[in-house]
């Protein structure tokens, strides 16, 4: 009855009532509903009439309800459809705002703007208002940050988007300038003209064998050396030229620009230092920040104290540099520390083992006996039973405890040994801080890594393999810690704490009293695990990055070559005698791999000079015992290390191709420089005979090329216009040039790109030579370069470079 009344009331009610009831559901699309309602009520009416004879109320009521419910459901469907359209846009806004007039809240300024103020971004679906985006980009570019990512996620911006949003040509030019500079710094063959006011750079392919470069800027034409990047020094090695320059500087008593600059600005001389990789001057403010620096230009990470490129474990090992320290250790202190570690380690280990084993063998039965005794204290048991129980327990533990002790020692001692004699020397000596090699207790040599190195070459490789093998086979130990470590590697946190964490892990997994007591060795072994794992993990990471760079086709070849390279490295061939020398410098590893694949790389002539140089050396070495070469190279490298050359433990976790190429560039440079500085630096008497001959031949080899080949190249250039174009193409057409290079014979020297590097304030002009050939496409193609695809192409064309890199990085710690 009541329902009927309701329906009747509804019928009698005006449309307004209906409308009001509709609006109570708060839906805009009310327009449909009333019509339906009218229909349904009409039908209700009709039904009612039909069913008048039957129990009207019920039927009508039922129909009424049904119709009302159907209206309701229709309205609900309408509601849902509206909301679904609202939620399909993922601005995180409410449906109401969308309807009110398409106003969206910007996540940066927290203000509402109309939808057209939110530019479309290609790389992600996040939207911010154009003013905020513009300001964000402005700030990022002015701080010379070129890996600009979305303010809400980590997706990098497409340069086209940046250009559209910025709508500021000057700033865009700056951005492109920084990008270009970053890319060039990453290019291993890029050399800046050393003339005082010249900002031009030269990308020199395969110029190591014929190192005379000429600046392409009109009016400059400075000739300079590919290896040392200084003014061209004919008939002199780079080192000799450097010494001469230093002498003349001293004679002139003119202070170097850096000192005068620092004095003018009031900063102390040791507050301004050049980046070890790109030589950009960096000031460190004394505001309590730590010594882990990241160069803003090239992104290389280094330690402020020792000015060497570091990995995060630099502060873990006893290299003398701490996070907040002000002074690095003197060489003496470093060597003492390292010697102490190496010598003291077996003593310490023996002591611990000697104490732990009897302690465990005696202690466990005693402990068990006591425990049983205590347990039976309170109980009211006969003495016999108690004694039986105690005797039983003690017997069992007497049997068990030696087993436990043996297992503990059997696990712990090899781990500690492997760390001390495998990983510590690698990490320490690779960081270039010492001249000590792992004598494996047979004798530690300082600065002369001669016979010892070679003699223990075999054993060292064995240790290396065991350490790496152990690392590989014991993934459970320290895996969690490594994960955490590598996670926090990006942050410049303290590393001492990782030692603590690692120590905990070790004590848990090994569960030995022996290890627990040895804090030093514990920490050492902790970082040993870390080092091992870091090595492995590093490899994996780099591989990943390589794959991402080089695309699908590249991966297969990279993988296979790398596998064979690494296995070759681990095998006991003569080339592997170089491996212990890797502790001196990463460049050794580079050499190994190049040598092992000379045939393959012959046609990838990118680092052709290196191939030839090293191949030549290895050949002469093989004839007269390959080891002297190794020795000399090791010595050289230790020299170089001591003279403060950088070590290339690049931060591999960073995204981007730049990083990898940068490390390779340095390794290349170092390797080649070392080759050229053979004769002057060598000291070991026994090898003096062999080395200078090789060195001389090599440097003369260089000078020969410098005279002849360049001429030949020039002449060929003048004749073959096609060639010339390819060679003088701008940066953007790098892939094309690469192709040329691949086809050429190894010894050809092709000076490919001449680019101007203007200072920031100036607007850069494209190279006139380049413009002839590419016109305005230069800029556009340059922009394309930045994009991952173009880079992939470029990298595809020199997979060997990336291979060397990868392998070399393999050994970085």
């Amino acid at each position, binding site marked *: 009855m009541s329902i009927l009344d309701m329906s009747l009331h509804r019928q009698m009610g005006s449309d307004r009532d209906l409308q009001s009831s509709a609006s109570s559901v708060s839906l805009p699309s009310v327009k449909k509903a009333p019509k339906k309602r009218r229909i349904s009520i009409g039908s209700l009416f009709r039904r009612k009439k039909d069913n008048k004879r039957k129990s009207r109320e019920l039927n009508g009521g039922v129909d009424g309800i049904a119709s009302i419910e159907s209206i309701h459901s229709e309205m609900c469907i309408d509601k849902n459809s509206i909301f679904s359209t609202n939620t399909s846009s993922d601005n995180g806004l409410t449906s109401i705002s969308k309807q009110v007039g398409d106003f969206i809240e910007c*996540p*940066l*300024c*927290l*203000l509402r703007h109309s939808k057209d103020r939110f530019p479309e971004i290609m790389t992600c679906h*996040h939207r*911010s208002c154009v*003013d*905020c985006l513009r*300001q*964000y980009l402005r*700030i*990022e570019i002015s701080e010379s940050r070129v890996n600009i990512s979305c*303010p*809400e996620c980590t997706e990098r911006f497409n340069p086209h988007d940046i250009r559209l949003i910025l709508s500021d040509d000057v700033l865009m030019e700056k951005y492109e300038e920084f990008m270009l500079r970053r890319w060039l710094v990453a290019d291993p063959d890029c050399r800046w003209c050393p003339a005082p006011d010249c900002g031009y750079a030269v990308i020199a392919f395969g110029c190591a064998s014929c190192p005379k470069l000429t600046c392409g800027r009109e009016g400059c034409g400075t000739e300079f050396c590919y290896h040392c990047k200084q003014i061209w020094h004919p008939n002199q090695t780079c080192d000799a030229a450097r010494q001469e320059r230093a002498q003349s500087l001293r004679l002139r008593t003119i202070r170097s620009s850096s000192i005068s600059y620092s004095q003018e600005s009031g900063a102390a001389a040791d507050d301004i230092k050049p980046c070890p990789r790109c030589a950009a001057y960096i000031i460190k403010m004394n505001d309590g920040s730590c010594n882990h620096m990241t160069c803003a230009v090239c992104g290389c990470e280094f330690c402020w104290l020792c000015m060497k490129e570091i990995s995060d474990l630099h502060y873990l090992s006893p290299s003398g540099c701490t996070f907040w320290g002000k002074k690095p250790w003197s060489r003496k202190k470093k060597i003492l520390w390292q010697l102490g570690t190496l010598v003291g380690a077996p003593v310490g280990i023996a002591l611990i083992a000697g104490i732990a084993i009897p302690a465990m063998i005696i202690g466990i039965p005693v402990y068990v006996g006591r425990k049983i005794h205590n347990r039976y204290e309170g109980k009211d048991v006969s003495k016999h039973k108690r004694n039986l129980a105690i005797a039983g327990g003690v017997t069992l533990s007497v049997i068990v405890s030696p087993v436990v002790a043996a297992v503990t020692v059997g696990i712990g001692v090899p781990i500690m040994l492997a760390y001390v004699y495998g990983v510590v020397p690698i990490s320490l000596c690779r960081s270039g801080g010492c001249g000590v090699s792992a004598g494996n207790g047979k004798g530690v040599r300082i600065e002369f890594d001669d016979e010892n190195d070679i003699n223990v070459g075999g054993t060292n490789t064995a240790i290396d393999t065991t350490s790496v093998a152990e690392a590989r086979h014991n993934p459970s130990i320290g895996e969690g810690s490594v994960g*955490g470590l590598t*996670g*926090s590697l*990006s*942050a*410049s*946190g*303290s590393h*001492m*704490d*990782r030692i*603590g*964490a690692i*120590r*905990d892990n070790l004590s848990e997994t090994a569960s030995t009293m022996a290890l627990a007591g040895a804090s030093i060795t514990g920490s050492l072994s902790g970082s040993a695990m870390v080092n091992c794992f870091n090595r492995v993990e590093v490899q994996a990471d780099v591989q990943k990055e390589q794959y991402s760079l080089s695309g699908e086709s590249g991966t297969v070849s990279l993988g296979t070559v790398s596998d064979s390279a690494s296995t070759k490295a681990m095998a006991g061939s003569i080339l592997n005698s170089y491996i212990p020398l890797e502790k001196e410098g990463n460049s050794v590893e580079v050499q190994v791999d190049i040598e092992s694949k000379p045939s393959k790389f012959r046609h990838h002539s990118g680092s052709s000079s290196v191939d030839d140089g090293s191949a030549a050396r290895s050949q002469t070495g093989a004839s007269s015992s390959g080891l002297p070469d190794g020795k000399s190279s090791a010595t050289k490298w230790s020299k170089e290390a001591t003279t403060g050359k950088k070590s290339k433990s690049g931060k591999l976790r960073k995204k981007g191709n730049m990083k990898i190429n940068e490390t390779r560039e340095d390794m290349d440079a170092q390797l080649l420089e070392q080759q050229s500085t053979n004769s002057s630096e060598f000291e070991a008497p026994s090898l003096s005979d062999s080395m200078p001959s090789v060195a001389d031949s090599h440097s003369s080899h260089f000078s020969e090329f410098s005279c002849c080949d360049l001429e030949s190249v020039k002449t060929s250039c003048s004749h073959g216009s096609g060639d010339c174009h390819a060679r003088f193409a701008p940066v953007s057409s790098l892939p094309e040039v690469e192709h040329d290079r691949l086809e050429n014979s190894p010894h050809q020297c092709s000076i490919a790109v001449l680019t101007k590097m203007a200072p920031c304030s100036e607007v850069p002009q494209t190279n006139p030579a380049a413009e002839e050939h590419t016109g305005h496409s230069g800029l556009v193609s340059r922009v394309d370069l930045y994009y991952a695809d173009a880079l992939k192409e470029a990298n595809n064309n020199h997979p060997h470079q990336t291979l060397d890199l990868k392998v070399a990085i393999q050994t970085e710690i």
Partner: protein
Amino acid sequence: MSAYKRVAKELEDLQGSLPCYLRNLVSEPDNILVWHMLLLPSEPPYNLKAFNVSLIFPEDYPFKPPKIRFTTKIYHPNVEESGQVCLPITSNENWKPCTKTRQVLEALNMMVNQPDLGQPLRIELAEMLTQNRKQFYQSAQKFTLSYGVPRPT
């Protein structure tokens, strides 16, 4: 300019629904870019007292992260003796302009309650915490009781 607007808006929003671990959230009367608040951690030994914290927003906020500072002394591995704190989400490298201050404060509270031993600012405290928890708690409790600010009811 947009820094002021955003900071003001965030302050209003936070004051409207203050998290349970915060009290007395105010900005300086003449500078809205500096906030003061009272932090009430829930974990021992810090749950015995409260700590004054100040938040300083830079002029180009939100494109630069705010700086956090403890004005009350606290015995914590991630807080320097000077009161400076290093929170990962407000570090220069990790800062995202879309991060809200509410998230920052949440992260701060979490860090105080659960020290981050991965990057301590006070190495000796971190080592003590890992090696000898009891001693750490005792020292921390003593320190908190002597330097902490009394908790409001």
